[in-house]
């Protein structure tokens, strides 16, 4: 059973063993509006927690996506190249973006649980 965590920048990460699959939250996808492009990182790229990992373009803006945890990019969801609208449809399931090889499980303590994230959204 994998657990999901959220960042204040609206990324999510599901961790199972050393695999950390990340994307952006339903809330972020809704706020961005129609998403037109997702720029994914190269396989093998090493990212640090809170550093820019990818970028996303909606109709009117380009936004950075930050790595929720540190690690090495082992897989990207290249289906988003042709179907970026999936992010609007299923941000927290089908439209995962990057799979990282988790570098430090202790970093998860800096993130929010789903319940904490939902409370956080109410404060925005």
């Amino acid at each position: 059973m994998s657990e999901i965590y959220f960042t204040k920048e609206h990324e999510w990460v599901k961790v199972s063993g050393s695999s950390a699959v990340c994307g952006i939250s339903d809330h972020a996808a809704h706020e961005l509006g129609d998403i037109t492009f997702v720029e994914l990182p190269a396989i093998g790229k090493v990212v640090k927690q809170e550093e820019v990992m990818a970028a996303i373009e909606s109709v009117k803006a380009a936004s950075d996506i930050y790595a929720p945890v540190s690690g090495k990019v082992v897989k990207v969801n290249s289906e988003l190249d042709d179907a970026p609208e999936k992010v609007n449809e299923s941000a927290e399931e089908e439209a995962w973006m990057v799979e990282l090889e988790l570098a430090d499980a202790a970093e998860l303590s800096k993130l929010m649980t789903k319940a904490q994230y939902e409370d956080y959204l109410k404060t925005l």
Partner: protein
Amino acid sequence: MNTSHYCPHTPEEIQEMLAAIGVSSVEELFAPIPVELRCSTFNLPAGMSEFETYAKLQAVAADNNQNLSLFIGGGFYDHVIPAAVDHLSGRAEFYTAYTPYQPECSQGTLQALFEYQTAICRLTGLDVSNASLYDGATGLAEAALMAMRATNRTKVVVDGCVSPIARQVLATYLSNQDAELVELPPLDGLLNRDELAKQLDGNTAAVLVQYPNVFGGVEDFSGLADQAHAAGALLVTAVYPVALGILKSPGELGADIAVGDGQSLGNPLSFGGPSFGFIAAKKSHIRNMPGRIVGETVDKNGKRGFVLTLQAREQHIKRHKATSNICSNQSLCALRGLIFLAAIGKQGLADLARLNRDKAEYAKARLAELPGVVVLQTAPTFNEFTISLPKPAETVVAALLDKGIAAGLPLGRFYAGSENMLVVTVTEKRSKKEIDQLVKALEVALCN
């Protein structure tokens, strides 16, 4: 205080403005600037009437010799401009509109730019075009940056036969980037293929070439795209758009990106500007293209409409994610380019290109008959070619200028050892009589 004749504000208005910001005098306003750094005089004459001003400016303008028989090209060309270009581009709807940040208000401008993009795609044989750039030289630099983004590599290899002016702009652009710029010295006025092969490696982002090149040579670049692609690099071609009337397009050559200056498409030489740059690319590179792109869509009632699309990386929206540090789209000049292309049409462009080539061939043959004049013959040429003279080209050009002939572009200032080389350009506007006069005047200048 001294109120200038050129300043439209009354002393009362000035006092009002000073009071609003809480200072008592203009002196006090400028107090933070040390006196020695202030401008003591603007060296302007006393106020003149509108009539006097107009007469004065006309007299200054008359000092420009506009009746030269022009054989200078080098990237900017003296072509015929159909009357429709001035007339249509001069309509107030186009002439007074600024670039369309509010697409819904600018359907006419957007449609014109959409059609411009279509024309550029057809001309270059590539899939996508933006709505124009500042000029051809910045277009070349933007293409290099595009290739670096697309390949995630940092080395840019440019043929030394590319316009030296454009290469200088390219070098300036790349000087503050994490980029390595390699210039290949020309070999007999052509691309040095052995040197190129040595420079193609795992870090090469792009190979930049130009046709016709600065010497006028039209090199056969077939196979060059495959060579660049085999190394994982993109091929960027800078082109002279009028020449595309008879030459293979960048798309047919397999180029990934094509750039060029649009001055020759319906824009006057106008003492150096303004002009516009065009950039077109394969569809796969559209996300890396700088500037704005106009797209076609339908409104909620299903009616055809136009929008600025793919502009999420535009400077006014997301500065640090912008794909370019200039977003100067030259709408009005690009519109002139569109009207020019639409007015002369596909066949007209081919005819115009042939006329240029044929007239240049005549001039080339006549000049080659002069004693001491040698034509550089390493490649076919379009409407310009390089000759070597028995004297410094600068001297000869100066002598002919006195006779009302601008004989060409001396290469000495760009290439060491080329002091006797002259690039001569012949467009459709040069008559046989003018060409004969050039030949005769050159013969005289070489005898003296």
